[in-house]
């Protein structure tokens, strides 16, 4: 019995060309730029000074508020300077620039096995998850410590792990589930312990049979954890849609999963939780899918934080001549890259290189009121109407039409036969409304 969300959704070509391939390791460059803002919330505050030697995994910036997350050095080296670096969108943001020591010195020497993880307390798990800089690895980069700190009076019944990976092209979660199923489930159990949840469900889309088999095999030893198959549909991995599919519960507009007793984490986040708790290992590397129809050697790469996007593309065979667009993330929700030399960050799950013919939008035509966007919207909104409100600055009308519950999943723009920039204008309304608050 395949589970799925009930309303809307689309079925883009999965294009999982890198599925089942080997994981290759990418080396950090000689100069590593580590961004200080790698999570939602306040940027981390640097605690190192120029000239200071740092080890791989050493704290270089601390959390600067409740919703904030510390940053650790991905390499052994010397801090050169603290200065802004251009991010993937070309915006200058504070960073720590580290000159790496001789090649081959980045060993995991200082990480130790923890003695008895099963006896660890909830507080200890939350502290370690916070100290090791674990953030949502699915792309939202919400500090996991905050998510695990359940406020008094709230009860968590379910911890859900998101292994849907519904974005076309991306395969890093698939690869992680195939290779590290037991580690992911151990991380899941720490999350369950920290939040007091008694049941855990892992949701995986049906187009990843090997990941499902591996995870089910690993889940055999834990009676409180089940692995459910999800129908392949976008946006199956969206938080509210995943909760509906796996538990039948609906998160009301403007509320959090916690309000219906659920916590959702990405499978890669659970893996990072395991590393943080058992190995005291901070988040300094992650799996990144580097893919595209014209790349000669696409695949999943183990990438230290701070590795330039351009280095990843080189590792995947180099930039094809007809490249028209580079995307950080997947094709549905990822962001176009204007600066390929920008360093990778904790939330970057993929680099997608699209050829010129796939990188331009069609010219927008008149809306023919076909209703395709309304049928595709997983939130039951009327995107064609919201676009008109956005175009005409009718923000209060847009608010009344629930523009603020839009997921920005892009299903409306994807299906529009007139290629109208529906989501662009919805974002405009949302941005204006949020800045008014």
């Amino acid at each position, binding site marked *: 019995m395949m589970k799925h969300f009930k*309303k809307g959704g*689309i079925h*883009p070509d999965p294009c999982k060309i890198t599925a089942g391939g080997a994981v290759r390791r990418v080396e950090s460059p000689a100069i590593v730029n580590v961004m200080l803002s790698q999570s939602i919330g306040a940027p981390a505050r640097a605690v190192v000074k120029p000239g200071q030697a740092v080890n791989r995994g050493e704290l270089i910036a601390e959390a600067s508020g409740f919703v904030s997350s510390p940053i650790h050095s991905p390499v052994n080296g010397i801090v050169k300077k603290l200065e802004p670096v251009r991010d993937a969108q070309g915006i200058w943001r504070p960073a720590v620039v580290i000159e790496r020591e001789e090649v081959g010195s980045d060993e995991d020497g200082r990480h130790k096995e923890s003695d008895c993880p099963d006896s660890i307390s909830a507080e200890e798990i939350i502290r370690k998850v916070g100290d090791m800089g674990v953030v949502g690895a699915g792309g939202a980069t919400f500090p996991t410590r905050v998510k695990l700190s359940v406020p008094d009076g709230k009860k968590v019944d379910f911890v859900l792990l998101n292994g849907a990976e519904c974005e*076309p092209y991306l395969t890093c979660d698939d690869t992680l589930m195939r290779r590290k199923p037991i580690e992911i489930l151990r991380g899941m159990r720490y999350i369950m312990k920290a939040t007091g949840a008694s049941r855990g469900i892992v949701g995986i889309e049906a187009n990843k049979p090997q990941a499902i088999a591996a995870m089910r095999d690993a889940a055999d030893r834990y009676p409180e954890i089940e692995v459910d198959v999800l129908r392949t549909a976008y946006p199956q991995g969206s938080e*509210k849609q995943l909760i509906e599919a796996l538990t039948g519960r*609906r998160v009301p*507009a403007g509320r959090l999963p916690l309000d219906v007793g659920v916590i959702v984490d990405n499978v890669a986040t659970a893996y990072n939780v395991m590393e943080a708790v058992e190995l005291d290992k901070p988040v300094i590397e992650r799996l990144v899918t580097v893919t595209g129809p014209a790349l000669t050697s696409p695949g999943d790469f183990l990438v230290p934080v701070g590795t*330039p996007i*351009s280095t990843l*593309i*080189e590792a995947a065979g180099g*930039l094809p*001549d007809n*490249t*028209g*667009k*580079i*995307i950080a993330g997947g*094709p*549905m*929700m990822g*962001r*176009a*890259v*204007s600066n*390929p*030399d920008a360093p990778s960050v904790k939330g970057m799950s993929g680099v997608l290189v699209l050829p*010129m013919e*796939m*990188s*331009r*939008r*069609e010219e927008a*035509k*008149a*809306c*023919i*009121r*076909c*209703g395709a966007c*309304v049928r595709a*919207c*997983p*939130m*039951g*909104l*009327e995107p*064609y109407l919201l676009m008109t409100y956005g175009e005409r600055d009718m923000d209060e009308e847009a608010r009344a039409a*629930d523009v603020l519950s839009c997921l920005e999943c*892009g*299903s409306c*723009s*994807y*299906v529009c*036969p*007139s*290629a109208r*920039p529906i*989501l*662009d204008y919805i974002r405009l309304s949302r941005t204006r409304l949020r800045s008014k608050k």
Partner: protein
Amino acid sequence: MDTEITKNLNISLSPHIHTGRTTRGIMLDVVIALVPALLISIWVFGADALFTICTCVASCVLTEWLINKYMLRRTVTITDCSALITGLLLAFNLPSILPWWMAVIGSVVAVGVGKMSFGGLGTNIWNPALVGRVFLLISFPAAMTTWPTEIASGIDSVSGATASTGATALHYLNHPDVTPNYLGMAVGQMNGSLGEVGAFALLIGLGYLLIKRVVTWHIPVSILASAAFFSWLFGGYPLADLLAGGLMLGACFMATDYVTSPITGKGKLIFGCMIGLITIIIRRWGAYPEGVSFAILLMNSFVPLINRYCRPKRF
């Protein structure tokens, strides 16, 4: 990495991929769906039918081109193929022997008044082809109800003895003593406007549109079901009402026009049921023998209201 390629990267907001389905592609699907009915009309009415169709299509496309080019002075939009469909549908609503200049006037009104005066495709309130047809019906009532006395499919299964008067299938509706020949009506052995004569061919076209997911079942099914129900309720021949006149054409191709029909399934059902009811009321008690065009146009006017009250359920 600093090359000619990275200097010229395209930057846009997500999503970065698209279905590939286009407005033009949808319109061409509708044209394909109209082909069976078009062939039937040529079989029944011969070269007259082809001539009327060509006249309407050419004048509709030309009207849109001229208005874009010389009145609105904007990019020409005829490549979206919507004027082509308006022309085809208008021709389907005309008698094959209508004088050519009337067909031209109808086309100019359909595209010029029915569509372009509102701003072009997507902004019109009423189905353009029906605006053209009703304009002609009111202006030239005699010519619009004069049918060829001989049709190529041989027996006129409807009028039988009264073939010389050129009665259409609607004849039954007011002559309950004549037993209708349903099979003949379904395959084109009857008189009427070009696109009214082959219910079966229209249904094949509808099947194509449903398979290609160009339209949903809501509007055609609700119109036909509601018309049959009210025909039965008011003591008529439900099957004759379905097969006769423009009901099948209206249900499959005119009322399903995206621009002038409601967005949600619930809205479409209300829209369709009301069209069925109004059609039967006009046929029974109205001054005109046929009511499909008026019923659709009337309900077109209510579409904004229906859309307002039939919103999709929020998550």
